[in-house]
């Protein structure tokens, strides 16, 4: 898994169906509430659906299905697998 990981990005840049892993250094930027809902460093994030104008985002992280706004998604850094 780790060998495939190529580059840093944020949740806001994911395409529908694409997978990323929340990076450790995001910790301070993740709102406590999201953290509590399972949005933890190291967790797998999948983008399920985008509303028009790419906002909000419908993601599945750590088994939780959540809708978050783009501004929040743009703060959470992820490691993307090389596609």
């Amino acid at each position, binding site marked *: 898994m780790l060998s495939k990981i190529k580059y840093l990005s944020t949740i806001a840049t994911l395409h529908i169906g694409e997978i990323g892993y929340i990076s450790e250094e995001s910790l301070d930027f993740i709102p406590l509430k999201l953290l509590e*809902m399972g949005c*933890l460093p190291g967790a797998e994030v999948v983008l*399920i659906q985008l509303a028009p104008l790419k906002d909000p985002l*419908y993601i599945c992280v750590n088994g939780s299905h959540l809708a978050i706004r783009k501004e929040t998604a743009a703060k959470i850094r992820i490691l993307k697998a090389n596609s």
Partner: protein
Amino acid sequence: MSKNDIKVALIGNPNTGKTSLFNQLTGLSQKVGNYPGVTVDKKEGTSKLSATQNAIITDLPGTYSINPTSIDESIVLKTLLKKNIKESPDVILVLADVENLKRNLLLFSQIKDLEIPTVLAINMVDQMHRKGISIDLSLLKKELNTEVILISARKNEGIKEVKEAIIRCHVAAKASPLCGVNHKIDPDYFNTLKEISPNYSLYELWLMVTQNNFPGTVTKVEKEKLLAFKQDVSKLKKYQHKETIYRYQEINKILKKTYIVDKTKATDLRGKLDKIFTHRIFGYVIFSFILLIIFQSIFDLASVPMDFIDATFAQLSDFAKSNLPNGVLTDLLTEGIISGVGGVIIFIPQIAILFLFIAILEETGYMSRVVFLMDKIMRRFGMNGKSVIPLISGTACAIPAIMATRTIASWKERLITILVTPFTTCSARLPVYAILIALIIPDKKILGFLNLQGLVLLSLYALGFASAIIAAYILHKTLKVESKSFFVVEMPNYKLPSIKNVFFDVVEKTKAFVFGAGKIILALSIVLWFLASNGGAAYENAETVILENVDNQNLNEREVQQKIASLKLENSFIGILGKSIEPVIRPLGYDWKIGIALITSFAAREVFVGTLATIYSVEADDEDTSTIKQKMASEINPDTGKKRFNFPVGMSLMVFYAFAMQCMATFAIVKRETKTWKWPLIQLFGMALLAYVASFLTYQILS
């Protein structure tokens, strides 16, 4: 409630089936009250645990964590931090959903660390097999050091075991923390914190510091020491983050040993449904279609029971009139109370049908998809995806709609939603629109199939929504309200709605309307009745004046009575009020009689029709719209010699009712929800000003 009853607090994440479990445990014994000092409803019910033991179950609002982000959630913290006092729970029943067990256990771990006896119920276990989940129950019990029960609340499985576990847990009455979390983050820091007081667990002290919530039992010295910890905010925040991660690490360790998911067995129905329901085009098409069905049903299904209620109350009033002795009390009963109660009951069918639909949409999980679809659009107007629900509910009644804003975490977005919801066309405006449209809009078809009257009504609905949106935009740009905007919505799994849950929900919301708005409408009806049936000397002499002049006119008995009633009304307190505002409303095209109706309809808008009926001395037992309509149609404006209710006046009145708040019950509920006089007053005067200006322009341009 007896002293021996066990006090149980039911806690869980949203969408775990908490309502189902609460309904199974308490059945029809539940009632809704209020938490002291806050507006959140408190749902309580009695449950028979065994032949000798009862429990009082409190259903706390769904939350993902003890750390609150909305008013609803703050109740959970407040309830749990109150220890060893009368209202504090003896046992906590935590409900978790088997599919999201990991996330659900976070809340469980926080509660366990409060050292209150806790039972964990894992719900929806009937779906475990289908989802490929297996649990090592005995090991899980040991690892979590608590009673764990597998249940299916909808199928009523495992409820008996939950009850038994509550009794066992209460008897044992010992509780130990799960994680003991804080020491490992910074031992020195947390040891100092722990030394502040031996009366609280470390986690309780930590919560007091992070949430700035101090129970009354904390001494002044203790509080000062605790407040000192609050000074380093960044450290607090960092440690809260660390605490959450540590909890998840501990939970993961436990679940690794006890919880296995075979992903190959999982079906992806949810994914398929989401592709359609949240689609950027089809999603909106489906939502519009659902709205269309809802509004269609409200009109079609509600009209039969509404006509029935209308007729029943008219008969009841007649019956009381003809069977009770004449007098003030009989008048109060027939004209004040019965018509007041009838004015409340008449709205129940529409409100119940609308809430039936909303309850079904929420139960199925569809409403979260609507929130997702609408968030960006609503945000442009300073609102939130969650504002859609109040705005739709507002088409029935603003009271429950405004209460539905409580889930919106951002204060500014919630406030704007509260302030603009009364613009949506509620059911009380309908009777007013209906009679005015019938008066001034010809009943003909345009383009061969579109009914002109229906089209006007539809445009009034559109006007309501449009003004709500525009007002929201203006407020968004002008309001300077400090508020953290944070938005996260869980998208729950789709499921079939439970009839029981939907039924309880509809009953509860309808009750909120009847007892919230109803009380005020009834009280105002009585006040207005008093003002209309009392007056000064001119009022008392009305009968004599008419009778003295009656001889030289050829009038029958009925016409004489009508003349007396008219003169009485003109000289009653309310008539005097109507006359005194006449100069103000004349530019809108209204006379003092319409002025009276404007004043009385402050109780509820539909009172407008009834008042005009009284003013134009339609006999009280003949409350048929066509008669009122005929009377209104034949009313002449003495200044012009033409019809009073001509096109400009009718349009001006409809515009007035579209914009003016004209509802004391809404005023009261906004006062309650915003906890100030400021916002309801701004809303009342703002909307009145808008209504005045808009009606003025309408009348002046059209005439």
